[in-house]
């Protein structure tokens, strides 16, 4: 699946949006079935985002979340504060005042290449799918360590339900399996979002930066951050101005728990041996005396 195909798909998505039918079903990704060997993700071009919040609407419709009001007056009010994703909102648009004016930034799960939440899960309810989506399953026990382990604070817990779930963007995994674009990508009217294999979107991001060096800063957020993410961001201003943390480092998050996890099997073998040894060495000489006596008798 090449870039041109993608742009075509994006184009038809826009057409669908223009006729008022936000989510026309059955739009296929491409002829080829998606290769399971590569991660898929979204390239977010913040210079193109106009803050219409259609992605929020599309996302809510697809995932059965409360449908937000995206009228212009509402948007104007809402965007005054910086919001976070929640247990009822998988994706959020924020507006930042920067040196280059107002910039809109969609925020959702970054779908890390090596996700902390997946490494933290003791029942593999959080899973990194071979095609890149980080998804949540019902066998979760609700320990919420995924929330603690996520550098982007994405998994959200339903605190006010007797039967709670962890809620987060799953990059429309079901739609992907049916060969359909993620809802947010499909409804985006300005092609600010581009879906593709990580390789494709990374190349496209680099191409855009090279073609417009004055427009973009030379940094794709997510290329190296926390070991790389499947969500990539382009920006015209330094990322800290539009709400991104620059102190997360490039080490994949599961690496931080290797120190302990790799030591466990060693301790499990060494401790019993050492303690049996000490126990034997501190044994009162009673038995030894008996031995002596026996030897003397012989």
């Amino acid at each position, binding site marked *: 699946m090449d870039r041109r195909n993608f742009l075509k798909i994006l184009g038809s998505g826009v057409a669908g949006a223009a006729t008022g039918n936000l989510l026309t079903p059955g739009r296929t990704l491409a002829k080829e079935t998606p290769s399971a060997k590569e991660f898929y993700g979204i390239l977010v071009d913040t210079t193109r985002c106009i803050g219409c919040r259609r992605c929020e609407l599309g996302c809510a419709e697809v995932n059965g979340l409360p449908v937000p009001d995206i009228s212009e007056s509402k948007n104007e009010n809402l965007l005054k504060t910086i919001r976070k994703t929640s247990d009822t909102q998988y994706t959020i648009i924020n507006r930042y005042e920067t040196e280059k004016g107002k910039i809109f930034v969609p925020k959702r799960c970054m779908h890390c290449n090596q996700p902390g939440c997946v*490494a933290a899960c*003791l*029942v593999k309810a959080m899973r990194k799918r071979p095609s890149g989506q980080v998804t949540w399953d019902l066998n979760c026990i609700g320990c919420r*360590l995924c929330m*603690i382990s996520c550098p982007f604070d994405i998994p959200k817990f339903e605190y006010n339900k007797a039967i709670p779930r962890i809620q987060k963007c799953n990059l429309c995994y079901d739609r992907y399996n049916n060969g359909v674009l993620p809802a947010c990508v499909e409804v985006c009217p300005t092609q600010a979002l581009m879906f593709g294999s990580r390789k494709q979107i990374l190349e496209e991001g680099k191409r855009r930066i090279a073609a417009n060096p004055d427009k973009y800063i030379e940094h794709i957020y997510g290329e190296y951050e926390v070991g790389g993410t499947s969500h990539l961001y382009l920006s015209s201003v330094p990322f800290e101005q539009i709400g991104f943390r620059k102190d997360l480092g490039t080490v994949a998050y599961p690496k*931080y728990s290797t120190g*302990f996890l790799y030591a466990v099997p060693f301790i499990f073998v060494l401790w019993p041996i050492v303690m049996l040894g000490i126990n034997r060495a501190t044994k009162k000489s009673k038995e030894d005396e008996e031995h002596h006596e026996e030897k003397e008798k012989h």
Partner: protein
Amino acid sequence: MAGEKLETVEIVKEKGESPNIKNLGDFWNFLKKELVPRGHIATPFNIISLPIMLLGYVFIVLRLAYGLGKPVTNLNQEYPWGLWIGFDVVTGVAFAGGAYVLCFIVYVLRAEKYHPIIRATVLNGFLAYLFYAGAIVLDIGRWWNIYNPMIGNNFGVNAVMFLVAWHFFLYMLAALVEFSPTIAEWLGMKRLRKILGAMTLGAVIFGITLSTLHQSGLGALMMMAKSKIHPLWYTDFIPILYFVSSIFAGLSLVIFEGSISHKVFGHQLDEAHHKHYDDILVGLARICAVTMFGYLFLKAILLVHEHAVPYLNSAMGFWYLFEVIGFILIPCLMFISGAQQKNTATIKFAAILTMVGIILNRLNYTFIVYNWYVPLSEKYWPAPMELIITASIILTEVWVFRWMVNRMPVLRKPPAWAIEKH
């Protein structure tokens, strides 16, 4: 469920004879007899604790009916873990560390001096796991799935939490085996007592290994919160700090619990025990002091290693120094002076200070310096119901502990047929 002070000498003497249990019916009759409260029921402790416990049980039902959030707890999306994990589980387990440390000293190093307090300590450790770690059932959101890590369809062998869960479970079994000879003595089962006694060393070594790993594992849970915990507290060596601090945390609780037990159950102890007890306290104080001394230097090394020295001169830095100087250095010095002057009052006070320090330290990691950049107004603070449920769980544990100590040879001498030979 008896009045704690009124366990009369007569009853103890009567208990000196072991019951003769031959079948399940005998056992049932014996248990029924043992479940009957003894002594005065209307003691001040009972009058205060019972309403709190009952209120806690009501709130537990509320939590199950309405979910984990408000009004029961103040947990939110910024602070997924609060008092129940931070205090009940993480701190509770650190306090239960006394059991594995004393088992190491008594069964592996064979320091017989500490033998008189081993049973109470192991019982305390076991009950702490049962109740405080058991409190995790309340805290996990989807508690009906709790068996998943054990017999579930997906073993998350990649997860620290997976190990902690398994280690908790297995350690509870090991602690039960360690304590089981006492139960066999209570029931008067001589053959069983012999078999269980022979399993002690294995259970102890297995238990110490498990304890090492899950004490440090509780620290390792926070490893992937690197971007959220203040750099003064976050280090690659959190697991080792947790392990080392569990040694003096556990022993401090042994000193604290022992000083209460000796007042309440003192009549169960013979004179020799009373005489030895101060000596035992002094020994424990020395171990605490030395461990804390080492811990202080670990902290100093890590401060430099993590390039965290510049943060000392900030509000968070003062909080850090408050914790390290106020609740590690000062109790460490008090333990030393208490041990030297054989002043048990100083030792007991130092133990209390150390325990406060451990509570602070563990809560720091779970919610105080976790997300430290969040403004004070948005910070998590335990809700009243959370506190009452926690108090209710602790009091229930104390009641069960009291029931067992009053009926089983935990503090008093075991029956003559079961005197251990080493």
